[in-house]
């Protein structure tokens, strides 16, 4: 039989794992295929059936189910199933039904086993069942770093040293020396020792800087030298969050809380002893630079730090946070420099980061999205000249540092985005109470916001207020959900092409537009619905799960898919940088390994399902 003429061979050739076969093997497999047609809705594999062949979908699509009847997976043209039964020799665990009219190629078990035994790549590919593949990809990148896997509580070595805030610094210094600690927690006088109310922390450097250098007497109460705005972490938090909290607030000691009770204190050395250090030093370095030129001289280090994290297999969540942290530090330092030049601000202000920086999900390709919240005492005619200059200094500086100006003019230099808190509330109230789909499409970036510099409580107030309002506005959520479905993922890949739902091909794929961005959109809707104040997508998912808005398995799927999509985006940008190119998000499928190709397809499937779920969950309300 001359299989050369047959469509069978050409079709197999385009789909992994058959892409790994040489001509001889391909001919052999093509010539041994058996074919059957299954009408939509008919059973292809029934539970417990012996499986003698590998099943290959030539046309159509199928659904796999769990023993319980619960939906498990959907496969389409070029996908395979049945391999697990063939490898394990056990009967079918997942019944398979034709979703559309489907043409199946059966590849005899003997052929399958020969390929499995002889071709490494073939074996690697078929060994993993679809969904676990994505999870394993995530697990693989998690190896080599403990930052995400370790909980803060594990670092706590001893219970905290505490004393009343009215105690003297002498008593404090003696207690710290006796106990061999570098910090002491101050509690409100007369509070229950089992549930102490923390009011501050005193560290070695506070004693040096605020007491000795200031020439204060030893009987000064510790309340006079302590840091009051106490930053704490929860024992359940990951080490990585602790590092981020330290960097963000520029503190070295963090009380660790468990059910509102302090159980210990961790310091920078504890955290820095665990892995990814380089971004930590980089952030310190940014804060030490005297001028813009100094900041610019750090750009190679920014790139180097990014490449190292990707190379070390850091998770997308870690990379995104670290890159955002670096950007945040640049903004903070630029604003400090601006204040040195312009003098102190006439009214309190807060610089808002919007979009990816606010979510701690920044990549190496980013523009500046920022705005100013001003104190309600703001008087435009009197004060705005200052803030305009401040904003210009900031945005021009950021542009020099490689953060391109925002094309949509979402920057503090835009007078419309320098507003007092009351006006911001009014604006958000308008979006929420009278949602308008097109308008909302352009303003969704405002729903990821975070205070970066100045009076960050202004940003926190706004966040809290938005979370309360949005969760009670079904029409708004409906519009947001509708908008979150506009950017759809592609179906998957053919050999060198991206296959669109329409059946058309593209030669490259915008990972952000078609992957991470719509995923973030989906998660934002659920987060706002569950009144979460979190901005980071992974944190939002935690809140959504806690609020019971999605099942744990749905949350796990979304988390894995986002992790994989964002990770691929970072790896792609690292690849660009290593090639001496400007980083972009345009992925050419030719450069993808089969493993990643498969995972991406799975991630797209999760996204697509999530978008479909949105449609059902948030009935779109016509306004």
């Amino acid at each position, binding site marked *: 039989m*001359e299989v050369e003429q*047959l469509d069978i061979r050409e079709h197999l050739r385009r789909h992994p794992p058959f892409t790994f076969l040489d001509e001889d093997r391909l001919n052999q497999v093509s010539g041994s*295929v058996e074919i*059957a047609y299954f009408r939509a809705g008919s059973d292809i594999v029934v539970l417990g059936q012996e499986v003698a062949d590998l099943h290959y979908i030539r046309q*159509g699509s199928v659904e796999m189910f769990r023993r319980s009847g619960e939906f498990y997976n959907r496969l389409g043209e070029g996908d395979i199933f049945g391999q697990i039964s063939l490898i394990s020799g056990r009967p079918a665990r997942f019944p398979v039904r034709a979703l559309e009219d489907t043409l199946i190629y059966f590849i005899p078990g003997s052929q399958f086993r020969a390929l499995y035994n002889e071709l490494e790549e073939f074996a690697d590919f078929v060994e993993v069942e679809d969904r676990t593949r994505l999870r394993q990809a995530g697990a693989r990148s998690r190896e080599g770093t403990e930052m995400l896997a370790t909980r803060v509580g594990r670092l706590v070595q001893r219970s905290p040293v505490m004393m009343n805030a009215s105690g003297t610094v002498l008593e404090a210094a003696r207690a710290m020396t006796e106990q061999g600690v570098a910090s002491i927690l101050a509690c409100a006088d007369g509070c229950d020792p089992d549930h102490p109310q923390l009011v501050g922390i005193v560290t070695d450097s506070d004693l040096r800087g605020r007491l000795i250098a200031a020439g204060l007497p030893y009987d000064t109460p510790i309340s006079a030298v302590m840091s009051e705005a106490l930053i704490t972490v929860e024992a359940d938090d990951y080490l990585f969050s602790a590092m981020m909290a330290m960097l963000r607030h520029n503190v070295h000691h963090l009380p660790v809380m468990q059910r509102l009770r302090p159980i210990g204190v961790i310091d920078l050395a504890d955290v820095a002893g665990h892995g990814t250090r380089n971004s930590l030093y980089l952030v310190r370095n940014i804060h030490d630079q005297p001028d813009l030129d100094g900041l610019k001289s750090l750009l190679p280090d920014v790139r180097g730090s990014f490449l190292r994290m990707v190379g070390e297999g850091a998770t997308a969540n870690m990379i995104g946070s670290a890159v955002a942290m670096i950007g945040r530090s640049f903004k903070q330092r630029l604003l400090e420099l601006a204040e040195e030049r312009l003098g102190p601000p006439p009214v309190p202000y807060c610089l808002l980061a919007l979009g990816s920086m606010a979510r701690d999900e920044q990549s190496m390709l980013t523009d500046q999205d920022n705005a100013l919240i001003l104190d309600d005492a703001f008087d435009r005619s009197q004060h705005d000249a200052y803030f305009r200059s401040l904003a210009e200094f900031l945005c021009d500086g950021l542009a020099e540092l490689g953060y391109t100006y925002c094309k949509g003019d979402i920057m503090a230099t835009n007078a419309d985005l320098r507003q007092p808190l009351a006006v911001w509330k009014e604006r958000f109230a308008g979006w929420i109470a009278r949602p308008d789909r097109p308008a909302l499409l352009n303003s969704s970036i405002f729903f990821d916001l975070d205070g970066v510099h100045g009076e960050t409580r202004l940003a926190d107030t706004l966040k809290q207020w938005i979370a309360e309002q949005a969760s009670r506005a079904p029409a708004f959520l409906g519009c947001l959900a509708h908008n979150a479905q506009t950017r759809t993922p592609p179906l998957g890949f053919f050999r060198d092409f991206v296959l669109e739902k329409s059946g058309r091909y593209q030669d490259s794929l915008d990972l952000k537009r078609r992957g991470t961005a719509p995923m973030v959109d989906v998660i934002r809707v659920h987060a706002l619905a569950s009144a979460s104040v979190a901005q980071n997508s992974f944190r939002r998912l935690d809140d959504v799960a806690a609020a019971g808005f999605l099942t744990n398995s749905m949350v796990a799927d979304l988390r894995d898919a986002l992790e994989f999509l964002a990770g691929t985006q970072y790896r792609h940008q690292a690849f660009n940088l290593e090639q001496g190119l400007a980083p972009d998000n345009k992925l050419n499928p030719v450069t993808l390994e089969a493993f990643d190709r498969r995972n991406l397809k799975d991630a797209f499937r999760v996204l697509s399902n999530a978008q479909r779920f949105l449609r059902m969950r948030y009935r779109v309300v016509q306004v």
Partner: protein
Amino acid sequence: MKEREAATSVPMLANYFRSGVPDPATPLSEVEFVALDLETTGLEPRQSGIVSVGLVPFTLRRIRVAGAGYWVVRPRRTLDEASVLIHRITHEGLAAAPRFSAVLPELLQALAGRVVVVHYRHIERPFLDQACRRWFGEGIEFPLIDTMALEGWMLRRGRTRLQRLADRLGWRRRASLRLGTCRERYHLPAYGAHHAMTDALATAELFQAQVAWHLSPDWRLEQLWL
């Protein structure tokens, strides 16, 4: 068949007839089929020759590519330009090919005991009959299933009396019964047409789809064959 086996003096044909055909009451699910396609230089058996033959054995459960057969043969008459274009088989390609008589034994063996399935019955049976007459001095006949006739019947069956009346009065254009178009109705993939092997495979898949949609595996052979 028994009578033909006894009557024939050609051993090859005797073999073929000995395997016989299945009992007409056999349910489709138990029948061994073979999809057959001939590409010819024209439509008239007496004046045209066979250029290529493709076949693939199958049941309702599986089409077996491993058992497929494909032969290019040298026709008695030269190819006209139109059929060169259609079949993409050139004069040079044919010069080296065997005569049809040389592949006939293998072909008969592949058909023996099976029910032939074709798309459009007025080619394969008369051409094979004519070829046997030429080489053996006696023809063959065999029952077959015609997916084109089946499709036409299913389309008519699905129409209301009023629609059928409209059809008869010519108010409505008949749906196409070409192989590719029929396959589209069942969401079968598009193949390149006019290759005997591909068309035989396409016919087998179409028949499986027709049974899946409109009949049932319990139907008896005699309800379908012509």
